[in-house]
């Protein structure tokens, strides 16, 4: 124990002998550990959105693909399936506000039932009433409202892509999330209003629904309920696919899973990069001290002592850099989240990420010491004493 402390003291003294080099290396490790942590958090956060889905909620859509709608009449038939509590529906509106860069999700929803099915969207009763009364009214999430500085009564024009024409809406309500993990970016308009207008210009799109959202009484029955709903419409013109909200959202994520896989791979590449840099530093330090290590051996210290000096120096440098990286990950993740608010609902650094960060820095330290220790074994004491560096 005493010896270990002695080695550690010597090793950390060694570390500060070339201050500039050590500081640069530590900075490099910190940068690598931070980017590793952030990249992992990006991937985690993509999936986190789906993890937050309510368990007792099913989504029913056309089995062919989301691009096909379902008849409105299906709603009533789904409601009659046993175990179904509430049903509402929504259509993707896909309008453009100013230009394509100003994106927020827009849905045409059924005003009477939508907020009952989504209790996590908290809306003032008065505002809900005002929304129901105004056919051209909309309810906007607080995030989007804040972003564009919208207030109650503001007019918002949208250029339709699926539903042709320029649509003008009046903000009648602003909903908040029950907690900070609720998506408050949505822009919700009356399905009835959109439908009536569409009847005149594009009759083929009238009385059609994009998805039905179904709350079931017993969340543990989700699989059976999904089958029960789908069997109602089997062999009909529009067969359905019902799944939990979570797997529905995971379906979207799996579309870009190649990109997520690439990000994950790249997160490990940065560890490799810094491993090379750190190994270089250690190789230099050990080469400079070839004579010194030989002297130690000549004095009677064994080979293991020299090893522990090299490994001790390498690991303590990696741990200092890694620790710094872990500490800085939190404020940087916060900063990153505030810049990319539109893309993520949550952005939390998970305990797994922190564990991996710490393990990665230990690994960097150990791997970096590998080449110098092997080298020091090969050198005979006499040659070491004679070495020119």
């Amino acid at each position, binding site marked *: 124990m005493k010896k270990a402390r002695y080695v550690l003291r010597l090793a950390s003294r060694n570390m500060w002998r070339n201050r500039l080099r050590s500081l640069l290396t530590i*900075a490099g490790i910190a*940068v690598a550990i931070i980017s590793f942590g952030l990249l992992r958090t990006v991937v985690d956060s993509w999936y986190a959105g789906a993890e937050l889905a309510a368990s007792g909620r099913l989504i029913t859509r056309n089995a062919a693909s*989301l691009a096909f709608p379902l008849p409105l009449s299906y709603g009533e038939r789904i409601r009659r399936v046993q175990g179904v509590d509430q049903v509402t529906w929504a259509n993707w509106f896909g309008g453009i506000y100013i230009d394509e860069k100003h994106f927020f999700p827009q849905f045409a929803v059924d005003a009477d039932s939508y907020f009952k099915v989504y209790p996590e969207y908290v809306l003032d009763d008065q505002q809900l009433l005002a929304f129901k009364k105004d056919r051209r009214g909309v309810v906007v999430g607080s995030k989007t409202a804040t972003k564009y500085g919208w207030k109650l009564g503001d007019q918002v024009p949208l250029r339709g892509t699926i539903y042709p024409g320029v649509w003008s809406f009046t903000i009648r309500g602003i909903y908040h999330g029950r907690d900070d993990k609720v998506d408050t970016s949505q822009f919700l308009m009356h399905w009835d209003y959109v439908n009536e207008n569409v009847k005149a210009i594009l009759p083929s799109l009238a009385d059609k629904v994009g998805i039905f959202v179904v709350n079931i009484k017993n969340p543990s029955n989700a699989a059976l309920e999904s089958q029960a709903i789908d069997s109602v419409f089997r062999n009909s013109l529009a067969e359905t696919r019902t799944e939990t909200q979570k797997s529905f959202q995971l379906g979207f994520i799996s*579309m*870009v899973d190649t990109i997520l896989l690439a990000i994950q791979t790249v997160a490990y590449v940065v560890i490799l*990069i810094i491993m090379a840099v750190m190994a*270089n530093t250690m190789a*230099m330090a050990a080469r400079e001290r070839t004579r010194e290590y030989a002297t130690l051996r000549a004095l009677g210290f064994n080979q293991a002592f020299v090893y522990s000096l090299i490994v001790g120096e390498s690991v303590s440098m990696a741990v200092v850099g890694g620790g710094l990286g872990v500490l800085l990950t939190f404020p940087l993740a916060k900063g990153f989240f505030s810049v990319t608010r539109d893309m993520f609902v949550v952005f939390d650094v998970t305990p797994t990420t922190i564990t991996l960060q710490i393990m990665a820095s230990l690994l960097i330290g150990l791997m970096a010491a590998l*080449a110098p220790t092997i080298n020091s074994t090969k050198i005979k004491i006499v040659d070491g004493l004679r070495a020119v560096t």
Partner: protein
Amino acid sequence: MKQGLSFAYVARNLAARKLTTILTASGMALVVFVFAAVLMTSAGLQKTLGGTGSYNNVMIIRKGSQTEVQSTVTREQANLISTLPGLASNPAGNVIISPEVLVLVNLPRKQGDGLANIVVRGTTPNGILMRPQIHIQSGQQFRAGSSEIMIGSGLAHGKLGLQIGDTITFGLREWRIVGVFDAGGSGFDSEVWGDNEQMMQAFRRDSYSSVVVSLRDRSSYDTFAEAVRQQPRLNIDIRRESLFYADQSEKMTNFITILGTTITIVFSLGATIGAMITMYSSVANRTREIGTLRALGFQRGNIVWAFLQEAMLLGGIAGVIGLIAAAFMQLVEISTTNIQTFSEVVFKLILTPEIAAQVLCFSLFMGVLGGVLPAVRASRLEIVDALRSN
């Protein structure tokens, strides 16, 4: 001395400390590899979607609808379009026009779970003639008026792995795959093609998604565009077909480029630090040598230049290694969803000369950035002190 230090001197300095050089260069090479892979992905996607369609064809969709899936064009509109001037006609005197219907159909991916949104295009014999890049690779073309379909070569291997003889069920009907076509690595390679009227029946639609017309010659676009403007009732957007598809790669390539560049810049910080460490020690190890060189009459500038050259050589070696590794990435085929159109697209990474040049410059720059401070330090050494140091 006017003549600086020779390049051989510079190169030998790197060779003298092999382990250090290899480690630093491999760190930098990894950064170069990541950077190259990002640019190659963007370029591959751009080439695939940009190479879809011909410059001489015009894509016509409903005004404001942006994508073919969201668009509807009625039969009346299609008829009216065929009467407009500027269009090419076949020897029989008929206008070359192809009203098409485009739907997205979910198919399970073979590897992993999840569904792919496959583009199913109902087209016409004209539609195939108008895309000269389409060649039947195996099997045969679908017969008009039948439930036969053919698939792009991108769907035949990789994640979906469809084969001739397979049947796919959509629109309450079974469709038999009778052929595989090769569309020269374009976006059509990720599509399923069949007869447009059959598709419309199956999906119970009475309108087309889009109309594609062939121009009489390159310059008749303006004539055609002017004619469309004269008919405001048509309510359509027109765009040259190749540009239409190129636009669809915009969001995705932007996303990849921004994400990738940010990652690369952060990574390059690490690698630059590595180069800096190496160069500083290169200077520190040779203090006496530098003093000697100065005493022999080499100028400060000569010294700075020699060290910068050394750093650039280091960057250059790393760049070449990284680039060679990245070149192998061209064998990789990516199948993912285009976030702009929500449909599956299969593409290959490509390495263009521009990317190679860009990546090499970047690598040299990393070297210079890491080498400039150490080089300045070397040149600042006082001759007497440097000679005296050990």
